[in-house]
């Protein structure tokens, strides 16, 4: 709607999915949590199932807009819009969520890595819509953190970092580290993950991993030059990792 109000988009037809009740649900299924595309952000925020099984999503969704916009904003809408700095696409990248899409001929399933093509650009064709997102929960007791830098609470973030971390016997068994708002789409920082995987997550190693983000190719705009986003990437990565470790 803001894009219509700004006359940035002037589509000939608008199809309203708001009343398609069958697209709004949060279900636990074998191996994943299924969230319908038209599930309101506010319903995800208050879901016990999400809080218990997808705590990273629960933390991130509180940073999406404000309660007045979360009441109507949907998870599928955020994914289809794909703002580079939006929280929900970053979470979807962190989990490498599966995106179920369909048109009148049938459906297909896309990994988030293949779905996100560029700023405001997805792999959806003009006759397809998102029906469901599937998140594979990490095992119980995993660490998680979503941190972002925005000038005011609820504003679009300049950059964000999302992390999932699983520690076993003092070592990092599995890790996912994603940066939002830095590149054209949210990016997994595999080099940083590699430094920590199978290693003891000491503060020195976290700092080393965070420094991997100093030279990422970063977006720039008149307010925030690329070097500023690179500095944010390092700081937010360090903060996210430190916060995600079991306290």
């Amino acid at each position, binding site marked *: *709607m*803001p894009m219509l*109000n*700004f006359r940035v988009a002037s589509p000939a037809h*608008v199809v*309203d999915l*708001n009343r398609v009740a069958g697209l709004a649900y949060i279900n636990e299924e074998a191996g994943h949590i299924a969230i319908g595309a038209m599930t309101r952000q*506010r319903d995800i925020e208050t879901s016990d199932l999400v809080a218990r099984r997808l705590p990273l999503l629960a933390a991130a969704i509180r940073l999406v*807009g*404000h*309660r*007045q*916009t979360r*009441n*109507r904003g949907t998870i599928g809408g955020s994914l289809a819009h794909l703002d580079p700095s939006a929280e929900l696409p970053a979470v979807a990248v962190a989990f490498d969520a599966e995106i179920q899409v369909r048109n009148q001929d049938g459906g297909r399933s896309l990994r988030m890595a293949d779905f996100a093509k560029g700023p405001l650009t997805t792999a959806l064709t003009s006759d397809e819509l998102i029906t469901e997102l599937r998140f594979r929960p990490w095992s119980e007791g995993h660490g998680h953190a979503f941190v972002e830098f925005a000038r*005011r*609470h*609820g504003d679009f973030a300049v950059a964000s970092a999302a992390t999932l971390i699983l520690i076993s016997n003092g070592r990092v068994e599995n890790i996912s580290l994603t940066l939002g708002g830095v590149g054209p789409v949210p990016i997994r920082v595999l080099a940083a993950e590699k430094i920590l995987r199978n290693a003891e997550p000491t503060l020195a190693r976290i700092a080393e991993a965070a420094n991997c983000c100093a030279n990422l190719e970063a977006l720039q705009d008149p307010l925030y030059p690329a070097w500023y986003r690179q500095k944010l990437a390092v700081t937010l990565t360090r903060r996210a990792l430190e916060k995600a470790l079991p306290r």
Partner: protein
Amino acid sequence: MLSVTVNGRRHERTVESRISLADFLRHDLGLTGTHLGCEHGVCGACTVLVGGRTARACLMLAVQSDGQDVSTVEGLASDGALNALQQSFWDQHGLQCGFCTPGVLMTLTELLRENAAPTEAQVRDALSGHLCRCTGYHNIVVAAMDAAERLRGK
């Protein structure tokens, strides 16, 4: 044909599909208490309740409210008497120019219905979706806390 209940009163109108709910309320129904500031969801002035939940009236088309219950600031007072929330704003000087106030009141109506004893932090979090250019946030928070206390005492 749009059929919508606003503040308990049912209206049936033919509207253009491009008209926002905010413009419909103001121009078609003459309910000018709902204000329009930024028209892209940031400022919060146009906040109303749709089906009991806050929504930006500038981010909805009027046709999307078909069959729904909409509440606006005009529905808060009854027979010319301010309700408890409005009275708290009056008593605690919770407004200066008043432009943002209708939206603020609708958000606090939702918050206080969900949570009768909000903390100051929860009030501030709910209010983060509103811009007040008189920088009157402090007294808005004071008024909200005062209203919560009044409503609990009822």
